[in-house]
């Protein structure tokens, strides 16, 4: 893997779009089904500067994916609104790349074909992007798999292909929903380092959702900690570790401090418990 390959220029498209600032303004989401209401997210205010790397951590079901769908304009919030570069988002925002929580590759397309789908749907000529597609796949370690079909790949490999698909058109805004969730620990570490390098060289605005506190701290300018459902912002922490953080930052006392602080928030909210595991208490029936 090689981060310089990740950085390879996208073909000139005439569209120049710089990094973008996002304002999330009083956003709340209630899902109604029959007569039950699910308050997925309560009321979220958050400003993200252009070129900022933001991570969102929070327990499962707290509305992280929902928040991402709202920011991307794929879901209209029940209340509140989202502004990107000062303009309200009504309907899908297209100047971005999304990595969904599941890889969602098309079964009938090869891996490269899946990566190129992004540009085909944008009515750009896929031919112009083949080279970049290969470079991206090489960079995530899938170079030899470009002509395979998704079912021939492991879950982690599929997810890496989905990441390439989100990067192929070099978008100024990246929304990533647990992009490294299905990766093994080593690949995950490598992908994180590569993503940091990519971000350092391109300064895209990134919203990165993860379950891993370490990952959030190592990657981000700020970490948004969410409460259990209904999701609210419990705390926003500015991560002042020097960059590039690479492999070494893990050993800094400051890193441990911040991780402890976030863990403390989860402990105080009952998301984490010390000792006496609830699982061990569940008796098997004989």
């Amino acid at each position, binding site marked *: 893997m090689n981060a310089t390959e990740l950085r390879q220029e996208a073909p000139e498209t005439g569209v120049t779009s710089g990094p973008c600032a996002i304002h999330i303004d009083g956003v709340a989401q209630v899902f109604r089904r029959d007569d039950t209401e699910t308050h997925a997210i309560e009321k979220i205010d958050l400003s993200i500067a252009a070129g900022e790397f933001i991570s969102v951590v929070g327990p499962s079901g707290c509305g992280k994916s929902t928040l991402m*769908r709202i920011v*991307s304009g*794929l879901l209209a919030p029940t209340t509140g609104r989202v502004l990107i570069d000062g303009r309200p988002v009504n309907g*899908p*925002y*297209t100047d*971005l790349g*999304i990595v*969904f*929580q*599941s890889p*969602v590759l*098309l*079964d*009938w397309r090869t891996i490269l074909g899946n990566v190129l*789908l*992004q540009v*085909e*749907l*944008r*009515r750009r000529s896929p031919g112009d992007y083949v080279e970049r597609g290969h470079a991206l796949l090489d960079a995530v370690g899938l170079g030899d798999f470009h002509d395979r*079909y998704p*079912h021939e790949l492991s879950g982690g490999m599929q997810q890496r292909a989905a990441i390439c*698909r989100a990067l192929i058109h070099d978008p100024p805004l990246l929304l990533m929903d647990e992009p490294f969730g299905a990766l093994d620990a080593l690949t995950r570490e490598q992908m994180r380092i590569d993503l940091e390098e990519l971000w350092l060289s391109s300064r895209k605005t990134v919203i990165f959702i993860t379950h891993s506190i370490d990952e959030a701290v190592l990657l981000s300018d700020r970490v948004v900690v969410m409460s259990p459902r209904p999701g609210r912002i419990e705390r926003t922490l500015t991560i002042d570790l020097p960059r590039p953080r690479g492999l070494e930052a893990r050993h800094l006392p400051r890193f441990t401090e911040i991780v402890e602080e976030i863990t403390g928030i989860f402990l105080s909210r009952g998301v984490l418990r010390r000792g006496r595991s609830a699982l061990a208490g569940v008796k098997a029936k004989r």
Partner: protein
Amino acid sequence: MSRRMQRVIAATRGWRDGIIGFTVLFLVWEVSAHVFKIPKYILPPPTVIWADLMKRYPRMIDAAIATTSEIVMGFAIAIVVSIPLAVIVSYSRPIERAIFPILIALQIIPKIAIAPLFIVWFGFGLMPKLLLVFLLSFFPILVSSITGLKSVPRDILDLARSTGSTELMVFRKIRLPHSLPSIFTGLKVAATLATTAAIVAEFVASDRGLGYMLLEFNGNLETGMVFATVIGLSLIGIVLYAMVEFVERNVVSWHVSQRDAPEKQLIGS
């Protein structure tokens, strides 16, 4: 060895075993017909069926052509009508709500029971048979097409929406290919129903085709010819089904059901 070669060899192995199976079946049948002295009008041995067929086949060919054209035309009309209708229904909830009760009602009516009515309405000839073939094959294609078109995972559609792509492109590149395996499932069900429908229509109208000949042979206790006709009808059905499957294998070779797994011979087709 290339994958394609391996596939061909696997396929011929399936054929070889099938042929052995049938040979054994016919041998047992032939031998027991002689050994147990079963009267020919009850169960003629394969050799007698063959001999009868050789004597009478010219008339059978005309009948077979008539039946085949009813099946193929009715089936084709069903495809041409139901797939576009499925597309419309999959895009419009109001239309779906308006049309579905009618379709369900149509499906619940035993169409074979209203076959005599078709004769009253359309007389004899091609029309009532086409209609019955059409009606029986229409519904499975429609339902499976709608299921396929509406089962695209939300995230894939979200991905498409986030590119600002046109709906036409989403349909061409995502919805349609995604629904093909499901559409082909419907087509295969419809292919078998189409054959049944044509025979029933010919029973009722009694003026042409293999169905009509079957009644006639049966009335004359020409059991050998009854068997020959049934085999002919089965062949038509099998060929139609095999053709659909052939197209399927080439169009949706990427689908789970088409991947070369050794079990496929048993579970699939």
